[in-house]
């Protein structure tokens, strides 16, 4: 049964310590939806400082400046990992800003041939991550059938409609941005900041959550838990309240 001693086991006191063991070549799930809401910025910054290289980064974007942010609001995205040349492969649905004239560290790295890109439809990406966490090896979806993104993939008709076989994604580490954690690792989110975080939390060997506050077990209504603690290995509280 849960005891108070268990509290200390998941709660880490620094972002640096929480990411310290990430090795070169690790497969990472990080991003939220692209904006500051749902973005595990402190964990990303810690990974930049930690310096692991040859990473694969799975996320909705590859760092979009200003997306979903207040005017002039600064926030750290996975862009800093491209800037620091830590990434060798990206799987994303919306990798670059809409305007081709907006240069980003990812776009620069991609143009220089330093990073490999796999573009996946956003819903397929979310479902592949969910499948990875749920022990589903692969699934048939109608999304992308007949398009360039289905090239080289197996297809098959179901109910007279062409479907594409898509494979599960898993990761070594997932960085999660949640609102509240209890000491058992149960998480809640805020609004659309939920996005890719709950699925990513299920699909990594080690899931690390960056949260606004950590409360004792029992403080989160069992009905309101979005990510059950079984999926969360490490929790770190962001400095300051709220954000």
């Amino acid at each position, binding site marked *: 049964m849960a005891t108070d001693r268990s509290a200390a086991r998941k709660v880490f006191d620094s972002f640096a310590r929480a990411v310290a063991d990430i090795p070169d070549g690790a497969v990472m799930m990080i991003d939220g939806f692209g904006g500051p809401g749902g973005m595990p910025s402190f964990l990303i910054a810690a990974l930049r400082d930690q310096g692991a290289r040859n990473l694969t980064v799975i996320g909705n974007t590859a760092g979009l400046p200003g997306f979903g942010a207040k005017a002039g609001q600064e926030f750290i995205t996975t862009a800093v990992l491209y800037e620091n040349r830590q990434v060798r492969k990206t799987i994303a649905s919306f990798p670059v800003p809409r305007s081709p004239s907006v240069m980003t560290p990812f776009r620069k790295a*991609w143009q220089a041939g330093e990073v490999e890109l796999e573009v996946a439809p956003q819903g397929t990406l979310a479902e592949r991550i969910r499948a990875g966490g749920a022990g589903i090896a692969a699934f048939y979806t109608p999304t992308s059938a007949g*398009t360039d993104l289905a090239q080289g993939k197996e297809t098959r008709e179901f109910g007279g409609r062409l479907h594409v076989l898509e494979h599960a994604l898993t990761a070594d580490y997932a960085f999660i941005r949640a609102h509240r954690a209890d000491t058992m690792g149960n998480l809640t989110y805020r609004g659309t900041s939920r996005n890719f975080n709950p699925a990513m939390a299920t699909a990594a060997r080690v899931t690390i959550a960056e949260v606004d506050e950590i409360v004792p077990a029992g403080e989160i209504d069992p009905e309101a838990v979005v990510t059950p603690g079984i999926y969360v290995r490490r929790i770190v509280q962001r400095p300051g309240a709220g954000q």
Partner: protein
Amino acid sequence: MKQPMDRDVMAMRVAREFQDGDVVNLGIGIPTLASNYIPEGRRVTFHSESGVLGYGGVLDDGEGDIDLINAGGQFVAPLPGMSVFSSADAFAMIRGRHIAVAVLGAFQVSERGDLANWMLPGRGIGNVGGAMDLAAGARRIIVVMEHVTKDGQPRLVRRCTYPLTGLRCVDLVVTDLAVIAVTPQGMELRETAPGYSAADIQAMTEARLTVAKDVREVEL
């Protein structure tokens, strides 16, 4: 006098398609504008692949909350009865055919309803986002776009030359010049902007149009 529809008129025309009780997903740009013109007496619920159902209008920077955005990254207002959920759940709704209408922008639509709206050829890198999921999943796809490109090239084409988003998925196209339905028999011109004849429209359209018996000027 020939009078193309402006963005707001196009949005207004799109909104007339929404039926009472519909759950609607709006793309960025003119599609988002359509939320300002819901016909009186119809209850429409908005869905966004950012993970929210039943949200309200777009908010400005001051009122906005970074934890409540639409798929374009704009801040939106909460409404009573709203719910939030994960991306996996948001796309389960889309792929599972629970969205009545998606309104999307496009580069090209073919006469059999193929849609190209995610990637410009030659750009090398494309943002697909949720476009393919919406094309495959929404029960009805309305495209809203300029009738021709800036260079005057038709966007309503026999076959798309741009990378496809989805096959045979578009149901209705609203442009600045016309309202065109995609039917099993091909494209049918149903409404024209004021002052345009069917021949005017066909002249700016590569796709072959049939003309509806009751073709008329667009009504709002």
